[in-house]
């Protein structure tokens, strides 16, 4: 059986078996092409990369949606016939590996026989069971043939601002299951002869509020794929098909080897522990589905192991279970989340391809929040779980770099905070979209510098805030302000990036509503801890006000609010009147708003690094001068005294005050043990512990051992005792718990 005559399934199974047996991609031992002519090999790799990257730049000018055109929410990559990434562009790199899962889904589910894979075919997917993350991330994929032989795949992904969800924006915050998260394209053939089928385009027009964005982005992605196909033909003409086949395999194996080398060169082996606990509340939302009408905390335990041979493994044993909400994850999203971590922090130079993926492993306990098993599960906002999880992995990697001396590499991220708008736009058309200015959110602190105040999100290193005017064209809103929020950064020797905020007024619509939420920090939660004594920021908030007098203020030429706090003060003192309004930390689905009403959101700041009392006073003064801190804030956070002598004295006094206020940890343990024994905590925390115990005894045993008690006090999960069916009838990506000594799986 040769590559030419074997089916794709046979080739994939052979590749997986070779890796299983040898630990090397395709079982490659000697990298023949690389070793015999490294310059030619580099030239070949550069040609592939430049082909991909230049195509991406061209695609921007074909696309229609603001997400792609203005905010870089797309990516394109080249894959082997078995579905392994060879070369990829920048952008939303989470999808480099989700596309890989999509290709393997196609192969393993027998698409070669039905619906068949032919030259000119176009496949699409946004289905979590086929490797996708959520409905707005739409993958477009074409096979590349040489005669009868499939020699490559080219895939592109764009994030759509609208996906036909129940609520309207592309990402649903409140759906209980997949049936409210919009249009599913479940690994389907949607085009032939290099054209989208008319019935598919009709389906988009009927199923979406803003179908033009999706359709024109589809055309941009297809154009990009075709451009790569054409350029690839020229590269193969130049280098030869046999060289292409061998060299692409070697690129991936070299990527795997380089990854291991990089880990060994920059990190320290051992066990790293993290915890995130996104708080979700919906009982206050008046319009929520009965299945989703609950408040809970998702506990995510993270244990990262850097093994002696340089592999990185992530284990989530002890995490709480999936539930009727859109924050669930599955292996596809989790692998994508890991990928954005690897590409931005470890594999950002040299060979960025699926070789890195072969050097890592995630253990995702079945039925947990990171590996939901219900066939109807919603993942529309899987990111609200992925973002805190992988931001915390970034933090854990920082510990490793510190230990090895590479402090310049330490980088922490921030939560994504989001506005969704639904209703009728300024042109009286139905609309739904997420405002993607969140793609310019701040960074957490670094190991050598403060976090960027307007940076990029964990999910797109090229993300930007974009022009306010673009968003004013996109929907029925006008910006009243976009500004930094003083004192809202995680304090530390290096502080987190500053929080910023936007406040909008509804304009030229009489029927629109908004969802306001944030990943990991809403509802009174904290995104994750800082590093080495750095603090988290003060918390998240949002605002809406309906039936306001803002249009009257405008008519009278009076001052309008430009930020959330100012709007809150004006609402409180009666300058602004409203039929109803909210400002606070709980996620919201507003009532209908109309012309002149208000909504706003805070984009949470980054976490801090190091003891704040070690912050350079000159850095504090710079923040004071730039309005990022108040004098009161600087005194509280940094014991800043205005001059060196006063600051030094204030800091010495603060350290003594800390010692005076503190107790020995052993004494705290003895005092706290009674509470731990009875479980005298809030209902949500009790439920969280019990939900973890429902799936695993890992946290139970840790708890009992730490507190030296016999009984775990948390028994009530606060959720119905139910089981839900797993998908049947098709292959999908799977994962499971790490095998444990003495535990029969």
């Amino acid at each position, binding site marked *: 059986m040769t590559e030419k005559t074997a089916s794709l399934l046979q080739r994939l199974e052979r590749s997986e078996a070779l890796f299983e047996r040898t630990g090397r991609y395709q079982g490659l031992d000697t990298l023949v092409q690389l070793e015999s002519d490294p310059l030619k090999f580099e030239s070949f790799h550069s040609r592939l990369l430049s082909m991909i990257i230049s195509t991406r730049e061209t695609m921007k000018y074909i696309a229609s949606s603001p997400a792609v055109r203005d905010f870089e929410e797309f990516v394109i990559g080249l894959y082997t016939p078995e579905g392994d990434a060879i070369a990829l562009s920048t952008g939303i790199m989470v999808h480099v590996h989700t596309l890989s899962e999509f290709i393997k889904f196609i192969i393993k589910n027998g698409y070669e026989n039905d619906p068949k894979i032919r030259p000119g075919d176009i496949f699409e997917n946004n289905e979590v069971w086929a490797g996708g993350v959520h409905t707005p991330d739409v993958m477009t994929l074409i096979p590349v043939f040489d005669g009868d032989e499939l020699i490559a795949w080219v895939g592109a992904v764009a994030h759509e601002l609208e996906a036909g969800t129940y609520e309207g924006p592309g990402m649903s915050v409140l759906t209980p299951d997949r049936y409210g998260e919009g249009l599913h394209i479940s690994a389907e053939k949607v085009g032939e002869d290099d054209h989208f089928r008319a019935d598919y385009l009709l389906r988009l027009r009927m199923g979406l509020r803003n179908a033009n964005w999706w359709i024109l982005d589809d055309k941009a992605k297809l154009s990009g794929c075709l451009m790569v196909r054409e350029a690839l033909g020229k590269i193969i003409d130049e280098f030869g098909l046999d060289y292409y086949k061998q060299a692409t395999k070697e690129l991936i194996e070299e990527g795997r080897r380089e990854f291991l080398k990089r880990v*060994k060169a920059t990190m*320290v*082996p*051992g066990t790293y*522990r993290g*915890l995130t*606990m996104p*708080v979700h509340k919906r009982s206050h939302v008046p319009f929520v589905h009965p299945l989703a009408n609950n408040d809970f905390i998702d506990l995510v335990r993270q244990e990262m192991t850097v093994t*002696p041979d340089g592999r990185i493994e992530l284990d989530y044993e002890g995490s709480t279970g999936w539930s009727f909400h859109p924050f669930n994850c599955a292996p596809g999203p989790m692998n994508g989340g890991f990928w954005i971590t690897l590409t931005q922090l470890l594999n950002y130079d040299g060979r960025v391809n699926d070789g890195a993926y072969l050097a890592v492993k995630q253990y995702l306990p079945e039925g947990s929040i990171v590996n939901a098993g219900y066939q109807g599960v919603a993942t529309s906002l899987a990111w609200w779980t992925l973002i805190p999880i992988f931001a915390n992995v970034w933090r854990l990697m920082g*510990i*490793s770099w510190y*230990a090895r*001396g590479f402090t*310049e590499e330490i980088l922490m991220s921030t939560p994504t905070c989001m506005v969704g708008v639904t209703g009728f736009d300024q042109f009286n058309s139905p609309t739904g979209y997420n405002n993607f200015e969140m793609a310019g959110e701040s960074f957490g602190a670094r190991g*050598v*510098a*403060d976090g960027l105040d307007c940076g990029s999100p964990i999910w797109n290193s090229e993300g930007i805030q974009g022009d306010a005017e673009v968003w004013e064209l996109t929907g029925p809103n006008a910006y009243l302000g976009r500004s930094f929020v003083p004192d*809202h950064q995680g304090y530390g020797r*290096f502080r987190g990036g500053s929080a910023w905020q936007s406040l909008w007024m509804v304009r030229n619509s009489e029927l629109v509503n908004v969802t306001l939420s944030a990943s990991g920090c809403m*509802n*009174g939660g*904290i995104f*994750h*801890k*800082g590093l*080495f*004594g750095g*603090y*988290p920021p*003060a*918390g998240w908030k949002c605002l809406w006000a309906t039936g306001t007098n803002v249009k009257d203020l405008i008519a009278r030429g009076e001052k309008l609010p430009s930020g959330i706090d100012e709007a809150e003060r004006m609402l409180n003192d009666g300058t602004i009147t409203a039929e109803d309004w909210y400002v606070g*930390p709980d996620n919201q689905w507003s009532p209908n708003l109309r012309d002149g009403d208000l909504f706003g959101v805070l984009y949470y700041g980054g976490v801090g*690094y190091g003891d*704040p*009392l*070690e912050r350079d006073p*000159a*850095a504090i003064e710079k923040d004071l001068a730039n309005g990022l801190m108040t004098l*009161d804030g600087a005194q*509280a956070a940094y014991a800043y005294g205005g001059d060196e002598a006063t600051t030094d004295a204030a800091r010495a006094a*603060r*350290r003594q005050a*800390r*010692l005076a206020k*503190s107790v*020995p*940890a*052993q004494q*705290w*343990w003895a005092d*706290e043990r009674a*509470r731990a024994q009875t*479980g005298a*905590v*809030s209902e*949500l*925390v009790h439920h*969280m512990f019990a939900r973890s115990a429902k799936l695993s005894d890992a946290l139970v045993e*840790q*708890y009992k051992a730490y507190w030296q008690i016999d009984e775990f006090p948390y028994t009530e999960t606060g959720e119905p005792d139910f089981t839900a069916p797993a998908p049947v009838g098709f292959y999908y990506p799977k994962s499971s718990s790490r095998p444990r000594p003495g535990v029969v799986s």
Partner: protein
Amino acid sequence: MTVTKHTPDRSNVSSQELTTALVQRKLSWPELLGLMRAPKEPSRFDETIVAHQQLVDWDEQILLPLGENLYIVAKDGRAIVKTRAGAELGPWNGNWKMQCRVIVRRDRADLLELYPEDQLTIDSDLIEIREFLCPVSGTVLDVDCVPPTFPVEVDFTPDLAAFYRDWLGRDLPVTL
């Protein structure tokens, strides 16, 4: 960005001097960018240890930096955790936080000592902030944000044996 007042010319300094300046946070932003772009030198670890050793008043050999102001050091043939100010916090693979002093902030009044009132939305019913202090200096070594009653755990337990013997290719000067 790091604020630097007077950046000396370091164009001809040794790699050790550059690393020492990095550890002491004296590098300018252009110098840091240069480090980020440059290959990761194998010598960095040893240079980092030398730089840290110069910062502390005690003599024990530093085996691994664990965090700002915190190390694993060799003492009497064993590896222990020690703070920059000299507090000894137990064995290298133990729960050193339990040897610290701690402030646990578990209600809004406690949190208001840290955060401005109009920005504070952290719900102390769900999360408590635990500040672990060096018992000698009062420096904050770590800040945990956890649900009440969650066990105290350390973020990192290195595989010291594999790191020294397999990765650095040298003997570990202690018995683990």
